[in-house]
């Protein structure tokens, strides 16, 4: 299991805390780094070349400053991050959101359920899949 952090890009404080809670419940020990808008996410990813990349980015779509799809586009166009696993984790399942996310190269699209029980299950599975099951792309390729 990778020890690299998870980057959560989410602006709603309640959602941030609930996600942290769900991660804690599913015994995921990786650090959860929170970026509260798209610009903060880009700053984290590109600001310090020595930092290394997160294991996975959990990306909301509706964000202040730089919105989620734009964050995704910049991740995919930059040589350093173009293979970084990005999971869209958002409230809507509007077709336009899903289509655009996949077109821009999202690895997965998860709609946050209203039910916290279901949400916790989803987060636990997410953790198992992206942190343990999935072989991450080689760094620097």
């Amino acid at each position: 299991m990778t020890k690299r952090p998870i980057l959560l890009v989410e602006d709603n404080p309640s959602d941030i805390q609930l996600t942290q809670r769900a991660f804690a419940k599913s015994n995921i020990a990786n650090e959860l780094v929170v970026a509260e808008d798209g610009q903060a996410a880009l700053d984290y990813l590109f600001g310090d070349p020595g930092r290394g990349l997160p294991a996975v980015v959990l990306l909301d779509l509706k964000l202040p400053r730089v919105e989620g799809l734009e964050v995704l586009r910049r991740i995919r166009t930059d040589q350093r991050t173009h293979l970084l696993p990005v999971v869209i984790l958002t409230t809507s399942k509007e077709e336009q959101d899903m289509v655009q996310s996949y077109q821009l190269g999202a690895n997965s699209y998860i709609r946050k359920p209203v039910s916290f029980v279901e949400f916790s299950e989803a987060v636990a599975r997410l953790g198992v899949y992206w942190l343990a099951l999935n072989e991450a792309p080689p760094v620097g390729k």
Partner: protein
Amino acid sequence: MLKSLLTVSGSAYGFIDEMFHTSEGKPYLSARAITDISWNEQTRGMYAQFVSGTLNFTKLESLFGAVMTTGKPVIANNAPNDPRRGGVPPGHPALNAFLGLPLHSNNRFVGVIGLANRPGGYSEEVITYLQPLVQACANLLAAWRSERQREEAEAALASRTIQLEAANKELEAFAYSVSHDLRAPLRGIDGWSHALVEDYGGKLDAQGREYLATVCAETQRMGRLIDDLLQLSRVTRAEMRREPVDLSALAGSILAGLRQHDRQRQVETVVAPGLTATGDPQLLRLVLENLLGNAWKFTSKRAQARIEFGRLAGPLPSAGATSIAASGDAPYNGTVFFIRDNGAGFDMAHAAKLFGAFQRLHRPSEFPGTGVGLATVQRIIHRHGGRVWAEAAQDTGATFYFTLATNESNHD
């Protein structure tokens, strides 16, 4: 054209006018060609009005008015003393002789020609002599009018299309916002209620925990309502495809799915083979999912449940059908599909409410639901140019009928 008329008839001046009617049905003329007889400030203004296309003549008590009201030629060789005359504006050249000719094209009275001051006046012979030229003028005016009407209709259609597109965009943006922003707080309410139970459950008695369970159940219900509402709006917004759809196969797979989720139930299902239609596969799936899902739900209290999907043989059922038929009473010769169950049914007295959004005919404690399913079904059926209606009786079951206009032929 006017020049030819003036030359051939030997007239000094004249006009060709198109005839219109006011909203009260009063005829009036609008100048299409007129001799420039600008002889003073006022008439120069008239000519300028003509050039801009807004020079209208409304006076019926006049020589040209007599042509409008009778639809017949008017000859007035002693114009100044003619009882029908309406007078000329100050500064207008003297009107000595006048010939007014109605313009008919395809039995429609489309305009009037006015000619003035032929030396020696006008006669029936002049009218006969002018006839081919007058007819050409009438045809030209009629063609011009129909071309203009076509352009107007096209412009109106284009502007309606733009309005409709704008409305659709707005609806799209609204639904998008609902989808993102309305569900998020629900997740908070549900999540923090759970957190309360998990972290402080020990400080709550059984009733307190029950209240929180109700809070969670209600947020779930709100979540379902939002989802159903979004689906209802998506059904209206979605672009329609038209292709052959195997309804029998679709119904079979939906029923298999229902059975999978509800293994302990004994339900006899009958699907007629070979039922096909032309339409949008995803939307038609939604229709069958809702109707079969309802049948499944409302037979849940039956020991011997039965659900049937088929097509009617013979003419439309008449009795209850027409009372809540969605649209039109023209005889229908296409296929009528039906989904019949022996479940709870409903009282036909409430049938009118059946297809309204959020309308329910059963208590939530008896049968759960948001009341959006049949509204969705109706919208889809209407988008396919079909009708949907139901027949039922309390406690003995319900039959839902639907037609799809694109069933027999593809209109697109």
